[in-house]
């Protein structure tokens, strides 16, 4: 198993705009294996984009299935991904393997429709929401040379309300499971 080196900010290469993938060959398959191993070895491990390891091609891996009780599509290989529809917005906290020791609040679309090819070049469509939608927007930014710190919302005075929030008064028995899982 080989792990690829992660580029970290302020490395200027992270600003590179990645090129579409045209060859779905054995080299690509080998790279996808290394990229997945690198993603799973990371602190969050829910997503990675090829430019994070210095390969400037429009390749994203996504797997938010470790987050409990959310809608997701499991382990995804997303090549030449494009968002074709957005809906709603939500603020959430993000971190990134390419931006160590910093997390921040970012506004992302809540729901989206995505078109992408798989590792064999076959086109698929996905309706995504919540964490999975947030993750793909974060990864797509990498393909366009953007980091979440380019989209930060001030940490102070962020008087936002999430779609679902817990009022102590109206939640008489907030169990530990509910509290953690949301």
């Amino acid at each position, binding site marked *: 198993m080989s792990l690829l080196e992660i580029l970290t900010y302020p490395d200027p290469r992270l600003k590179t705009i990645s090129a579409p993938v045209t060859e779905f060959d054995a080299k690509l398959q080998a790279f996808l294996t290394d990229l997945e191993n690198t993603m799973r070895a*990371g*602190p*969050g*491990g*829910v*997503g*990675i984009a090829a430019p994070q390891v210095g390969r400037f091609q429009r390749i994203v891996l996504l797997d*938010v299935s470790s*987050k409990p009780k959310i809608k997701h599509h499991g382990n995804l290989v997303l090549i030449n991904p494009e968002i074709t529809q957005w809906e709603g917005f939500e603020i*959430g*906290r*993000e*971190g*990134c*393997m390419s931006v*160590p*020791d*910093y*997390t921040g609040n970012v506004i992302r679309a809540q729901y989206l429709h995505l078109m992408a090819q798989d590792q064999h070049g076959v086109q698929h469509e996905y309706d995504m929401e919540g*964490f999975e939608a*947030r*993750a793909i927007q*974060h*990864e797509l930014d990498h393909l366009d040379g953007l980091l979440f710190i380019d989209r930060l919302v001030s*940490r*102070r*005075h962020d008087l936002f309300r*999430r779609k679902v*929030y*817990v*009022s*102590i*008064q109206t*939640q*008489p028995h*907030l*169990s*530990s499971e509910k*509290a*953690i899982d*949301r």
Partner: protein
Amino acid sequence: MSQWYMLTLVGKDQHGIVAKVTSALYKGGCNLGEASMLRLGGNFTIMLMVNYAGDNKQLYDLLKEVVLELNLHLHIDAIEGHLHQHRDPEVRITVHGADRAGIVAQVTSVLSEAGLNILDLESDVGGSVENPFYIMHIEGIATQGIALLSQALQQLLATQQPDLKVQLEPIETLVM
């Protein structure tokens, strides 16, 4: 050998304070770390990590002119500071209600007993002079779990603070 200092500057708010203070520090060979500037009750306040090769007195001398010109109070402490020590908050608690003495003390006491380690707290008084309200946001780490914090707050509201509005929500940081 350079050393981290914590500078605290307080004074009447006026245009250009940050620029003047940080320019004097930069020209004197300082490097800045983390900082927090806030306007509190119309006052300028800043706490600033400064890395500097000289001693406390030399650092004071760098700022003396600016501090006198702007009529600021300056306090300098040598600290055991380090960068790259961020911790991600796990929970956000928002409290608001009619302003009165003791809200912060009571809320933070029960949260502390229930294991909350506060990383960030900001509070403000809004409303009017006749009808002020108090609002506070806390972010922190639930060392004994979020459920215990929730229970502690419920108990406080049920027994002592029925009029306070309190919300608690986990902060889920998505690391990619």
